[in-house]
């Protein structure tokens, strides 16, 4: 798996602190939804920094990948991507990488529960986009926890998907500030929320949980407590590190 020089063909703001970079790849290898790429920056003095970014685009979108990047405070790589990179620039990447946090990992008709915190939604979006592009209609729920309305990455697309596809349910939860008139969840992820999310699905689902450590730990433990087997709960930590 060699490094290759991708060309930035589009940069799309998703939220005030999140941008999606479309990279055209000279050597495109079809990825699985949930996989990531490594990105490497090289300074003139030879210093190199690498980070991993989940692919947001589905494998059906060939020849290019979309990486959705959150700006991290003091972030060496995200800071450069936000301020130093324009359409037409080149970036070194290699991938796709990661064989466990991928969907489908079993029968694609099995119900799917996706739980995201913040930018943890990115690999889950690749799964939803793949599901849609492949014409799969397995029952699916995305429980997406954000602090406030302007932080909902892919909002339009997710709401459109939920409106057009009755087998997909979008459950948003705002932990700090909800939009005016909001009747949905307005709290941190808890046991009741996960019970309700699972209840939207006909049989116990395959679960993918991605977000900051606290959310992932708590969601995985609560799903376990509902009797879901460990093998049905796949987790990935994302975003600024904590603990």
């Amino acid at each position, binding site marked *: *798996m060699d490094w290759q*020089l991708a060309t930035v063909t589009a940069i799309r703001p998703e939220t005030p602190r999140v941008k999606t970079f479309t990279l055209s790849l000279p050597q495109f290898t079809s990825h699985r939804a949930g*996989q990531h790429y*490594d990105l*490497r*920056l*090289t*300074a*003139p*003095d030879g*210093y*190199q*920094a*690498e*980070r*991993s970014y989940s692919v947001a685009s589905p494998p059906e979108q060939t020849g290019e990948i979309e990486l959705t990047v959150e700006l991290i405070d*003091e972030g*060496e790589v995200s*800071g*450069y991507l936000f301020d*130093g990179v324009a359409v037409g620039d*080149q*970036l*070194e990447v290699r991938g*796709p*990488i*990661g*064989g*466990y*946090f991928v969907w489908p990992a079993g029968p694609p008709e099995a119900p799917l529960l996706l739980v995201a915190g913040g930018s943890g939604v990115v690999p889950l979006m690749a799964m939803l986009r793949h599901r849609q592009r492949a014409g799969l209609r397995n029952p699916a729920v995305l429980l997406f926890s954000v602090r406030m309305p302007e932080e909902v990455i892919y909002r339009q697309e997710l709401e459109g998907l939920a409106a057009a596809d009755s087998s997909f349910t979008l459950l948003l939860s705002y932990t700090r500030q909800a939009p005016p008139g909001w009747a949905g969840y307005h709290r941190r992820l808890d046991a009741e929320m996960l019970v309700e999310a699972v209840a939207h699905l006909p049989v116990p689902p395959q679960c993918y949980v991605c977000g900051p*450590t606290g959310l992932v*730990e708590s969601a*995985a*433990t609560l*799903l*376990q407590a509902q009797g879901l087997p*460990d*093998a049905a*709960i*796949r*987790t*990935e*930590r994302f975003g600024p*590190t*904590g*603990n």
Partner: protein
Amino acid sequence: MPFVNKGFHAKRPTEGGHKLPPGQYETRDFPVLTAGPTPRIPLVNWEFRLEGLVESPAKWSWNEFNALPMQSFNPDIHCVTKWSKFDTKWRGVSLDTLLEHVQLKPEAQFVMAFSYGGYTTNLPLADLRGGQAFIGLEYEGKPLVPEHGGPARLVVPHLYFWKSAKWVQGLRFMADDEPGFWEDNGYSMRGDPWKEERYRSDDPDAPDEAHFRL
């Protein structure tokens, strides 16, 4: 001419004379990375085993294990997800101490570490000897918490940290190298951060055009 990102430069110099392996950055946090839910292991049920290619297997209860001679370790650790953390403070039992309790068969060359919760990772036996590896029971002066692999985790700081199996239950000695959990999912068989052996295709013996299950 090697590729350069114009205008890019290091934001933070590395402090205190520590060296970062290629592609790594320093973090002050201790990030948590696992593939599934965190197992909770009651200490009364906990045991640690050495098995496989040994003349007779060894087994310790929690109390027996804690009665073994302990040492302090202050390694720099390196995660394949790119973070490194300097001067981590551990207490635990050296693998050299544990290996005194078994007689290895001569063909034993590799080890599969196995964990509560089903995690496995493979290592060359040579990477566990000579003061290079230990079973960590305390971190920063406190019992190791489950999120970081408690009650006990393998710590092999000179390899990427996924080799340092959390919730470790035992070691199985083998004649041939076999992939563990992440290795079976495309990661390096040895994982030397200084050679940047992150993925199977980075391994010196990786076939040129092999298609791994990445």
